[in-house]
């Protein structure tokens, strides 16, 4: 559905996107995961036609995506990072304006507004000025304002910033329902929990480059370990820790060791060494690695840095 080929975007001497190529299939829920300043919003703005790429091409359903191509933009919906609404106007008036910009009018527009407001539980507040809404309510309205014209592709640029857990959950459920109904979504975030929960495929972006691309399982296989084992950093476990350094990655922080065995290291070998140092098995906790670990592995830093 969406193809990006060798897309580059510079702002002065800063390369915001560096030779990015990407394919998004119809019906995908694609997550763009990266820290602040990684290039997520720039990529979104290029797809939305807000900026022009310095190099490379973007196509939506085979048609070039450019600022001048107004027709292609009717296929897109953008949920900006900010609350892009008119605060003095009420919810109904805001939606009327944004719907009318896509050529909607009359009963059709009214029906779509009713449906949208009901879907995000704002129907009973439709006459209230947006400035009187809570942050979560404003976020929900911000989301449906991009959906009135029923786009084929929805671009969500960190749509849950500053949202309370309840509203965030409501937004997630609504987006998942839309995706189940066939809407293709590109969702940028720096919260790995959101990407993990929502996205069928994830691209990890940093310094303007797509570092890894795939499903969660595919990304995890890029790690040189399959599990992560934690145990207390005490005098009793110190000899074991020294030996484990040869079998994988060992990091110590906050009074505990974190051991990530090499892919060829068998867990039986690990437990045999623990037994030989009389470290009881109840001290060990093991867990599957997360996207955070993938990002750390790929970039050498955490998502929050």
């Amino acid at each position, binding site marked *: 559905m969406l193809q990006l080929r060798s897309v580059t975007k510079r702002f002065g001497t800063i390369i915001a996107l560096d030779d990015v190529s990407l394919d998004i299939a119809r019906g995908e829920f694609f997550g763009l995961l990266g820290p602040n300043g990684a290039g997520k919003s720039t990529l979104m703005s290029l797809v939305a*036609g*807000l900026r022009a790429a310095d190099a490379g091409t973007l196509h939506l359903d085979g048609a070039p995506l450019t600022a001048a191509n107004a027709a292609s*933009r009717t296929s897109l919906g*953008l949920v900006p990072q900010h609350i892009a609404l008119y605060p003095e106007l009420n919810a109904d008036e805001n939606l009327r304006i944004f719907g009318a*910009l896509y050529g909607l009018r009359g009963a059709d527009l009214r029906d779509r507004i009713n449906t949208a407001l009901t879907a995000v539980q704002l129907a009973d507040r439709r006459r209230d000025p947006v400035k009187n809404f809570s942050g979560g309510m404003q976020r929900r309205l911000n989301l449906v304002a991009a959906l009135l014209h029923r786009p084929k592709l929805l671009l969500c640029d960190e749509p849950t910033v500053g949202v309370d857990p309840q509203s965030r959950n409501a937004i997630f459920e609504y987006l998942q329902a839309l995706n189940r109904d066939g809407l293709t979504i590109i969702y940028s975030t720096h919260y790995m929990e959101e990407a993990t929960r929502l996205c069928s495929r994830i691209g990890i972006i940093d310094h303007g480059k797509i570092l890894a691309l795939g499903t969660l399982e595919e990304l995890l296989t890029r790690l040189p370990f399959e599990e992560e084992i934690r145990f207390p950093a005490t005098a009793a476990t110190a000899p074991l820790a020294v030996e484990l350094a040869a079998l994988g990655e060992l990091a110590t922080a906050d009074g505990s060791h974190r051991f990530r065995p090499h892919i060829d290291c068998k867990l039986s070998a690990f437990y045999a060494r623990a037994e030989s140092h009389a470290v009881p098995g109840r001290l060990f906790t093991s867990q599957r690695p997360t996207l955070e670990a993938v990002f750390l592995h790929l970039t050498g830093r955490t998502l929050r840095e």
Partner: protein
Amino acid sequence: MRPILVLLRKDFTNFFRNKAAVSLTFIVPFAMIWLFGVIFGVNKKDSGPNGIPLAVVNASDNPAAATLVAALQAEKSFYVYTKFVNPDKSTRPLTEADLRSMMQAPDADFRFALVIPPDVVSETTFGLHLKIFSNPRNEIETQTVNGMLQKTIFTTVPQLLGQSLQARAKNFLGDSRFKQFNGTIAAAVSDAFGADKDQVQRDLEAGDFGFGQITGPTQPADRSLRRLDAPKDPTSNAPPTSVAQPAVAPATTGAVDALSRIVRLETIQVVGADVKSPFATSIVGGWAIQFLLFALSASATSLFRERDAGIFQRLLAAPVTRAHILWSKFLYGVILGIVQLMVLFVAGRILFGIEVEKHFVLLVLVCTFAAAACTSFGMLLAALSPNAEAAQGLATFLIMIMSSLGGAWFPITLMPVFIQQFSKLTLVYWSMEGFSAVLWAGQSFFQLLPILGILGGITVLVMSIAVWRFNRGKIFG
């Protein structure tokens, strides 16, 4: 105490980081003080109005009339026109017949004219007869011109008044008794004050009664005269040792007051004579346009609020272009401007009787062009400024400058001539010209076209720069 100092430091740090606040606090007031100082000639001895265009028609062959024309030409308050320029660039003296049509023209060079008629001094009536043709569209300017004219007449040609007295006396007494009358007075003056009798008689017959010595502060006392209270010494014609200067001031005031009652200034209003509420009609346009500029500048800065809220992202992701956003803002400003101006004029109609309905269509037309020019100004401010605060600061500064230079606060003729040149660069000036042309002069559509063309030209030029800047600036991210 320490928390107070910490918070105080924080406030000053914030203040000095905010360039708009710093400029509004220091630079704008400084600039305004300087500008007003220049405008009103602070620290200058010759402050006051400059170069008010005045046509002078001298139809009299009286030598004193020529002296009056020369005095008016030397007066810095006036720029005097005495010639009519023919189409072939040749010139001839202006005539009274020229004045009315010239002053009613849309691009009239002058709004005041003084006519010295052949009968400036008459044998049948006492006093001077002068005519003033005026287009008094600004009350302050009109009062200033009248005052300056009277001052010039009384201080430079008081002999005209003397001539009037002489002519009236001659007519009343007959030639022989008139000569005898002057001879008697001359002998009495000579006897009392010691001057030459024949010279005094010649002065009397020429109308020179010595008014110049009390109305013209720069004229020295006749040194051949002695003080009345000085001891009479028939053997000595020595000049007086001093002249009692303190007596001059009250005498001047008294003389001018007396003279003003016997100089007949026949005022002929060439333009706006049938305007019912002249003062309100002449000032409402300037204030209306000033408030319109403030309103439209505020609305233009809404571009920054929409940008900062990310609304432009949403709009531009829809089938909406930058041009759509800019032109919708422009049209919004124009419509708001027309409505605001018309509301103010209708309020002027209700409160002060300004005849809006008489010129409704042309007034709407001028309001449209003025609103367009003002809106383009607001758009340019938004295009040039990095943020809303800077735009507001710049707007306040420029609106005050344009309003004062453009004549919204006081007549531009009160300013030095070199500053008056800048008035025509302001949209306030041309908007006021438009309102005045319709409401005051009652001009037709075709007569209005030059002003509309200039306002339209300002709009096109300023909007072109604004759009160019918008496309290269940061307003659209």
